[in-house]
């Protein structure tokens, strides 16, 4: 029982985890309390939720360049997502993932990844293959 989602070749090593999904965007500086490991921006759809060790699934990146360093800093404190999946990453997020050795993929062939994957799904991410597998379901919806 699984669903395979094809995406563009990404960054990082394969990883498996539980999805946390929102139709919203992402900036480590704008949106996170990086000490507590939760979304802190009041307007963010995931406000108050922990991002630690999850497969974060969001629409796109926003804002500034700080995220490139911040993903690395978060990873070294073991206070980071396992992977981030986007409909469209920007350059900063990709650069941050490369330094942090964090899995990241975007550009999904089957459409909006924030609809394809649901919060709580068990997800395997293989960036080099450009493949994300939902392990606990066999139908999209």
């Amino acid at each position, binding site marked *: 029982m699984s669903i395979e989602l094809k995406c*563009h*070749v*990404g*960054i990082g090593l394969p990883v498996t985890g539980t999805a946390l999904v929102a139709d919203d*965007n992402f900036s480590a*500086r*704008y*949106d*996170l*309390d990086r000490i507590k490991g939760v979304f*802190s*921006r*009041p*307007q*963010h759809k995931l406000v108050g939720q922990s991002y630690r060790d999850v497969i974060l699934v969001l629409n*796109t*990146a*926003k*804002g*500034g*360049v*700080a*995220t*490139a*360093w*911040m993903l*690395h*800093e978060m*990873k*070294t*404190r073991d206070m980071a997502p396992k992977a981030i999946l986007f409909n*469209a*990453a*920007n*350059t*900063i997020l*990709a*650069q*941050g993932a*490369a*330094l942090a050795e964090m899995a*990241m993929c975007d550009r999904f062939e089957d459409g909006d990844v924030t609809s394809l994957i649901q919060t709580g799904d068990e997800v395997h991410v293989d960036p080099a293959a450009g493949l994300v597998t939902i392990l606990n379901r066999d139908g999209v919806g």
Partner: protein
Amino acid sequence: MKLDDEEQAMLAGEMGPACAWALDHQIQIGRMFDAEDMVPVSQAHMMADPESLGEAGVAFVERLAGDGAQVSIPMITDPRGVDLEHYRPLGQTEEMADLERRFIAACQAMGIMMTNTCINYQTIMPPVFGDHVAYGDTGVVIYSNSVCGARSNFEGGPSALAAGLTGRTPRYGLHLDRHRRATMRFIVDQTPSDLMEWGVLGAAIGRQAGSYWQVPVIEGIERVPTSDEIKHFGAAMASYGSTPLFHIAGITPECRTVADVDGSDLPAHRIGVDEITTLRQPFGAAGEDVDVVVFAAPQLSLVEMGQLASLCAGRKRASSTDMIVCTSAQVYADAAAMGYVDAIQGFGGTVLTGTCFYQQYAREIGEANGWKRLLSNSAKIVNILGGYGYAPALATMEDCIASAEAGQVVDRGAGV
């Protein structure tokens, strides 16, 4: 990706471990964005404040410096996180200052020029039309691409550093003509009249653009904006939309007409007074007590410092309201010589050099000083600081000073 002989040698470690790391990092990025090869760049500009770097980031940069890394092109820096001449009064700690000192030492060992500015295009060496550069700071990138006609992607700190070491960057995104064409068309009903309004208009367009890969072309701007006006416009657009490039018909250099950027057939999005009012509305706070007034993001130019000094002359801030002004060391020297710094300090303002408010442990200094309600004329900074525990509000420079004087938010209902 195709690598030339020099790049192959770098990757093989023949030019040292730092260059090998840098090229490997760049190849990972290039693969993700389908770069076919590398492009030489003339300058690099690195954003790296200690809050973003943390201990891990500083140690990483120290390791590169310890490996003998040297930048191969002129490389400059974005604002620092700690003004080492004025950190204790802000509530910043010795630990923060020590991280900053270590980072500065590592950068200097690698030959990086510590310019500490996000307005290098106004003060250091603006890029020229067609110039390929590797710039960090979204405000720097959007201004350089759009106003100067240079070519840069958003280069986060690690990638800017990699470009400084290798002298090149992967050729993808805005280094390619096909990604510089308009993808969205906006018609503006009313030309903004001051810095805050330019920022709000940029924010409204950025919010609708909403992606790094969208390129707005804008019509309806009825006069050539000043460098400061288009600085606030671009900085806000980049902040709200992660947008690295815009065109303004008849004003920016790649767009004499909309047809020049293939925008003629795009559907038009109208930006009227309603859109501007809707964006401003969450940042209104008339009559509420204000804890701190901030002028930053981007750092102030000499002209802005002069405008601020004129408004401050002969007035005093309320004892309950602090005021912070961030500028670059290059501007500060001139502003001091012209008496602007004295005028701002006479009002009770604090002028910080080489930092920017949101990059200097904004959460911690807010908590240390009891700052919650923050007022600024920067649409960029009010967008950022909500996540840092502030209640940010937006007003014109004139109303910001009047608010600092009154201790309460004065907002005369400016509309674009």
